[in-house]
């Protein structure tokens, strides 16, 4: 008889890490579909590019570290990282951006820190920031939603754009992105430039790229991510603390900005349904590895991200700020953890003795 004495408990909840990761990806689907609807084939290509780069890197690094790549790949964590990165990249960013991002996220941000569970920073966001800082123009070149384009981008043109930089007709991304001769920026970008030009918020929101609530297309995408996020909550893959604290803080800050009549304050709806807000709230800041541990700490962590997002969006040089904010908050995690230890049963007991 072999020695396989096990320790209690002898039963386990069936929910496993790979299942969790799998559900995360499933819940990303609505957002992904919405994004694909508005931006075409580019999103899928970016996701695929980032995924293959990430999985290849994961395999390679595991082999280099003398571990079984199968075990690491099985937990789906690299895949989730890659998918998030792919979704965050501009749909028609050149192919090498996704590859560099995927390799960097896995090799440097994750494995160099010791693999899953040991990374200090969110791999997808760290890779995104690397690309953003290195290739600012490329990384901010979002084309407007397809419906706003003069002529919709065909499938082959999309692929050519990614892999060669030009469509069959020789148009570059910048040329395609311009409507009526001037470039259509993303809604947040538009607000930022508009405000800097001294326009009133209302005036800016009249722009072509704005829809009923927030940016045209972006509002739907964000709502789709919200839907996916709710599913995650329902499935108990994530707990409510992080997204709720994040969104509430963001709302509070936005309202505060409006109340005090900050000249460059964007409306609440814009904050909530533009850029990567919802993707961030439910899928990015909820990465458990790099987030704070205790529920209270997580709420502080999320609020901190919201603060950074608001500050950078309002006063910073970049239109969106989820990636930067997440990284900044990641740096604060050890301190947050230190100060938000849970109260252990039996310590600091207050009695309502009567």
């Amino acid at each position, binding site marked *: *008889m072999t020695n*396989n*004495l*096990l*320790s*209690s*408990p*002898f*039963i*386990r*909840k069936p*929910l*496993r*890490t790979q*299942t*969790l990761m799998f559900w995360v990806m499933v819940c990303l689907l609505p957002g992904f579909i919405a994004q694909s609807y508005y931006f075409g084939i580019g999103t899928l290509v970016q996701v695929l590019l980032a995924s293959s780069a990430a999985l290849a890197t994961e395999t390679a690094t595991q082999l280099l570290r003398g571990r079984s790549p199968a*075990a690491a790949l099985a*937990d789906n*964590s690299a895949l989730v990282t890659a998918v998030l990165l792919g979704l965050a990249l501009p749909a028609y960013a050149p192919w090498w951006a996704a590859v560099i991002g995927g390799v960097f996220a896995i090799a440097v941000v994750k494995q160099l820190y010791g*693999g*899953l*569970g*040991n990374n200090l920073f969110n791999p997808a966001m760290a890779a995104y920031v690397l690309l953003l800082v290195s290739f600012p123009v490329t990384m901010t070149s979002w084309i407007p939603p397809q419906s706003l384009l003069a002529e919709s981008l065909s499938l082959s043109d999309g692929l050519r754009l990614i892999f060669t930089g030009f469509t069959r007709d020789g148009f570059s991304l910048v040329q395609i992105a311009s409507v009526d001769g001037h470039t259509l920026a993303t809604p947040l970008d538009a607000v930022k430039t508009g405000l800097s030009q001294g326009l009133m918020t209302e005036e800016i929101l009249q722009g072509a790229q704005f829809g009923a609530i927030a940016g045209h297309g972006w509002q739907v995408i964000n709502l789709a991510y919200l839907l996916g996020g709710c599913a995650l909550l329902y499935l108990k893959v994530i*707990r409510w603390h992080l997204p709720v604290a994040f969104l509430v803080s963001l709302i509070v800050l936005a309202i505060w900005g409006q109340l005090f009549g900050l000249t460059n304050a964007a409306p609440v709806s814009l904050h909530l349904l533009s850029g990567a807000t919802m993707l961030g709230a439910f899928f990015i800041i909820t990465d*458990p*590895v790099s*987030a704070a*541990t*205790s*529920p209270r700490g*997580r709420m502080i962590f999320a609020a901190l991200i919201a603060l950074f997002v608001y500050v950078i969006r309002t006063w910073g040089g970049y239109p969106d700020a989820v990636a930067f904010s997440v990284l900044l908050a990641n740096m604060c995690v050890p301190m947050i*953890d230190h100060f938000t*230890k*849970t*109260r*252990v*049963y*039996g*310590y600091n*007991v207050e*009695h309502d*003795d*009567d």
Partner: protein
Amino acid sequence: MRSWLDKIKQGQLWRYQGGVHPATKKDNIDCGKPETLTLAKQLVVPLQQHIGSPAKVCVEVGSTVKTGQALTESRFYQSPPVHAPCCGTVVAIEARPSAHPSGISELAVVIEPSSIQNEHAFMAPLLEAELTPELICERVHQAGISGMGGAGFPAALKISPNKPLNVLIINGAECEPYISSDDCLMRNYAEPLLRGVSLLEKALSPKLVIVAVEDDKPGAIKALQAAAGDNIVVRAIPTKYPSGGEKQLVQVLTGRELKAGQLPIDQGILVHNVGTAYAVQRAVDHGEPLISRIVTLAGDHVGEPRNYWVAIGTPVSHLLEQQKLGTHHQAIMGGSMMGFMLPNLASPIVKTANCILVNNTPAQAQEQACIRCGECAQACPMGLLPQQLYWYAKGDDLEKSRSYKLMDCIECGACAYVCPSAIPLVQYYRQTKAKVRAEDLLAQEAERAKQRFDARKLRLEKEQAERKARQKQAAERRLQQAQGAGNDPVKAALQRMQNKQVEIKAIENEQGELVPDNSAAIAARKARKAQARAAKDAKTTNPAVAAALARAKAKREVDGEQSAPAKSANPAVAAAIARAKAKRNSEQPAEAEGSKPATSANPAVAAAIARAKAKKAQRTDASQPDSTAAKPSSTSSNPAVAAAIARAKAKKQAAEQPSANAKDAAVAAAVARAKAKKASQSEQPELERPENDASKTASSANPAVAAAIARAKAKKAQAEQQTQGENADAKPAKSSANPAVAAAIARAKAKKLAQEQQQQTQNEHSEDARSVSSSDSPVEPADATSPPKRSAAVAKAIAAAKAKQAAKAASSMESDNDE
């Protein structure tokens, strides 16, 4: 505002943080009246089935016991006794695999049941009229009741009333999956159980009694409610794991949180298991001790999961047989959340064993990396941060583990249950906790050692000071007396009794050695006693035997082997020899065994002699190089050397005797030996005046006495030789008139000197040696170029009882020869 107790009474329930909801898996377990399990072929009753210390065994191997008879006894409540679960015979009291996750063997009484089980030795039932809290308490202790929920805290200790009690909680929560023994008990024995509760109430007089049952056991709740009177509240609590934990249950029912290190009683709350309450009823109303309990047998492999009344001590394998379960399974004792896999199915059912699970051995899930998802922290009922604890446990960071309150972990397993990465968290915590405990223990021991060390240092310093003061005083007194009167009392004493001198000197000598002051007095007293005995011996033949025996016994714990020969035909001889043997006992037991077969007619005595001889012979062999090396120097007409050689030879001769002449070995050998020694000693009459006394005594009627005395003499002589050659201080030892005293003192001295000399000779010698000869070996204890000292060294080498010394001497001899 309603008072706290009112709130509880009115059914308010509180919540505790964390907890999980595993599938209870109790639906298909038969909770009907439990069947009593047949007795196994052997019952193993571990002495310790509780927290605390084991009680003293009060039965012997071979004694017959009746059902309910106490196997151990103790007055202390922390050591509840264990009882015989059946009529039968005690076949062993030995270490048996325990019902513990380690399976480490622990002391247990093994009982073989007899075929007829009709007798019992229950205590007399207590009458209602005479019930007092103290009496109930005493009865609970006598019945060996300890907590039956899991921890096994002695129940009597818990109910000895010392603090005011507000709420008595009877724990019937039974929150673990599978386990249904309490459920079964509550359903089928509600009335006696509640009677037990009221007995506990009587003993403790609480303001409120609550029986708490999880709401997934409607049958039990119904049965209890039907039987409960007005004064007992039966409360259904929400099903959640681990509500059955003491702290959690207290919080659910009373809203009180126990401070770290607090016991419920510190807040006026007490928790008892329903099983305990039932056992109390049995003990008080029937006088029946805790000898059986309900055990659930369940799990994937169990065809008909059900409950059994199982006698305490029944091997788990016997229980498994009931369901035709082979032994290829691994059984889990306790539930699936907190139980443990039994390394050994021979482990018995103990008082705390509520369930045996035979499940599919779960495939050891691949432990994945912690993704810090925080599920464990959500599940932890103690509010700990399991993921951090895991981190520190892995890194062996005991300091951090402590600061994250690892020691407050109740090992409920909720964290590991929810962990998506399948990390055996509890196992990590247990190992780390064991390390922390070990560290604590070390720290405690270090602290105690330090205290003792410091105390000792102080004491030694004080003694030193006192001794100095005393010596100074004595010197002053002597000076005064010398001045005051011409007649020195010390001198007078010396003149009066020569032998007392010995003792005086001995005191001084030994004081120098830091020997306790009273040693001299003891020696003196002994000497007188011995003298008296010796005198008696000389006259009456038989009392001598007794005296010798007594002395031998006083010397050491006489084990059977040694005392057996002493009781036989010629006990005096035996005793003397036994003493000799004791001296060198540990030297060569193997050899001693080997020489045993040579004995005959009077086997006991002969055996003892043979063994003693064999050892001596062996020792002589060891010192052989000494004697051979000494031969050349014997021409230097030094009597000491000659004597030593003669003695060695005599011993060898004597060693051969028992085999050659086995019949009369006993007496003959002793006489021969004594003579041999005497002969060797008489070669130096100018040195050995007291030998004459000795030989006189020795030639007296009883050869046994003679032998003993002669041997003592020989020893002493040996010591003297050394001291003569070496140390003028040793002189008094030889002037002893009383052989017993001399022997006692000389023996101690010989040993001490043997050691000292080794160094002294070495030092002094090598100096001498250098001045006289060319030999410059610094590690030469017996330098051939300095005859008088050399002789002493040789004698010492022979005298040394230790083989290592002999070996050393031998080796140095050899090196000398080489030169």
